[in-house]
């Protein structure tokens, strides 16, 4: 009596199959991983080294053992609560100034992006080209003249310039938002229109709530940029108002009673603490950043 069962196929376990990979493939993989590890190490080293150097003895250089022994953690508390310069104070200033510039920028850039993406008007294309053009003007070209103008209107020693920069958006961010909004289904505009929304309401209640990923991207880029700003803080703000950037740059951590005004370890400790917030901010939102860039598709 013949049975209808088919001959059983030999069970090829996955493990067995993998071993058949070619030699050159394995070699290639190893090479890739080795390169990545090497490069990653190279990229981490400066930060790591800076961190290690911050734990060295006050006024010491970076000579001696690689890992300092003992680890002078007190450099950090010294940098934090240095008597004549309070880190918390400057930290507060930095946070304030960064937010002052970033938050309005993100919003006005979204607005402008929305305007460019969804409205036809005479002169729109020309203005858009102008906007792109502004990104070509080297910063150094205009910044001293801007300083001059701020001087004339007595806005030096105030925080107003940051607010004004905040309000005037950012060409790159506008470009980002425009790309993003051009891909919104037009029907949403129509539905909102029929539901009774004017353009402003449509923007605030329909577009903005659906822009979280791009808002995050813009916030990261602008926030990190402003946090690290050195030149404007040093030019426009006095010692009391200024941000962490100039403080750390000029190595204000003068150890008491010394004649050297540059103590590397404490300064580096300050620099480390100064670096943590943007790094943290970035770690928390990096997934959104990468996705945001993909969504808007930089294709030139």
């Amino acid at each position, binding site marked *: 009596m013949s049975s209808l069962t088919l001959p059983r196929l030999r069970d090829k376990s996955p493990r067995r199959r993998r071993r058949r990979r070619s030699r050159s493939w394995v070699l290639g993989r190893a090479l890739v991983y080795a390169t990545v590890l090497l490069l990653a190490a190279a*990229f981490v080293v*400066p930060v790591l080294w800076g961190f290690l150097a911050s734990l060295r003895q006050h006024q010491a250089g970076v000579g001696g053992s690689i890992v300092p022994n003992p680890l002078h953690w007190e450099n950090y508390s010294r940098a934090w609560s240095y008597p004549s310069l309070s880190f918390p104070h400057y930290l507060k200033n930095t946070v304030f100034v960064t937010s002052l510039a970033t938050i309005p920028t993100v919003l006005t850039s979204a607005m402008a992006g929305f305007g460019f993406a969804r409205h036809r008007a005479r002169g729109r294309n020309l203005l858009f080209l102008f906007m792109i053009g502004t990104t070509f003007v080297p910063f150094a070209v205009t910044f001293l003249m801007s300083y001059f103008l701020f001087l004339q209107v007595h806005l030096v020693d105030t925080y107003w310039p940051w607010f004004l920069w905040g309000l*005037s958006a950012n060409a790159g961010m506008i470009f980002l938002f425009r790309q993003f909004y051009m891909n919104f289904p037009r029907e949403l505009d129509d539905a909102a229109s029929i539901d009774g929304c004017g353009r402003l309401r449509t923007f605030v209640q329909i577009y903005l709530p659906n822009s979280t990923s791009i808002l995050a991207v813009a916030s990261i880029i602008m926030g990190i940029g402003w946090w*690290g700003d050195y030149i404007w803080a040093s030019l426009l703000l006095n010692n009391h108002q200024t941000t962490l950037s100039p403080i750390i740059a000029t190595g204000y951590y003068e150890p008491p009673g010394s004649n050297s005004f540059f103590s590397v370890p404490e300064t580096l400790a300050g620099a480390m603490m100064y670096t943590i917030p943007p790094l943290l901010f970035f770690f928390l939102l990096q997934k959104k950043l990468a996705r945001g860039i*993909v969504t808007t598709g930089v294709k030139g």
Partner: protein
Amino acid sequence: MAIDADAGSATVVRKPRRRVSFRRREALAFYGFISPWLLGFVFLGLLPIIAGFLISLSNFNGFNLHGYTVNGIHHPGAHYIGFSKYTRALHDPYFWQSLKTTGKIALIVIPLGIVTQLGLALLLNSGIKFLGLWRTIFFAAFVVPVVAKTDMWKAVSAQDGGVLNRVIGFFGGPKHIDWINGHPTALLLMLLVWGGSGIGMLIFLAGLRSIPEELYEAARIDGASKLRSFWAITLPLLTPVLMFELVTSLIFVSSMFQEPLLLSPGLQGGIASYVPNGNRVFNIEALQQIGVTGDWGYGAAEIWIFVPMLLFVTAAVFYSGKFWVYSASEQYGRE
């Protein structure tokens, strides 16, 4: 052939046409939404440019906007002096030197940067594990604020015991290289590539991801090696992104000035810091003419000679794109 289907309905008298145009409303909304940017563009963007140009034609020195009297000597206010600053600049060896320095740095850092960014992106895109981790590490350098970057690299490049010298010494080279004073340009380049590649890497990564997998599969069936696929598929399809990165890098290099300043040995003067010759890029030269020497007109004139040069170079790069940038629309255009 239209059929009038409402025969019999009461005719309604038509009101004369009064166009409250949708078009007008739309344009109004447009200008409303871009108004913050537009105002900022005019006052914070255009005005400084115009001011700069005007200043370049005057003998403004930072103080003499209006006339003033000191010690009984009356100094008149700044006035128009024509293009004399420009001619002076064109004969100034320091001016040309700074341009050369900028050019030299650009020629090294731009290709180096692009190769690094592309290389990193390719590595990350080759299907390795822990992608997020590597991506974070490579991008983190970009996130570090400028001031901290330079401090870290000062420690790295320290003459006595900096890790850079240690590594070189380990491989048999000299152990006490003075980077800051002796090889400032090399130091600057290392810092720029390290700190600037993160964003470019992400952009190249996005570009790589957008290449359809099927192309590589078809190539494999056709028998192409990995290297061949790279040259024939990856590179050509990446040319738009390449162009974008090229232009962005160009703009970045032409704007850069904080890094050389912050890397100077001793930073007590801010803008007035001493910058070793190797790093005296154009921007530093112009800046210090204004900030140190006080000759605003001269610095502005230098800038206004530089800008058209830069625009020319950028335009040339753009134009060259016609020959090497793949444009998706071309493929179907001629059929």
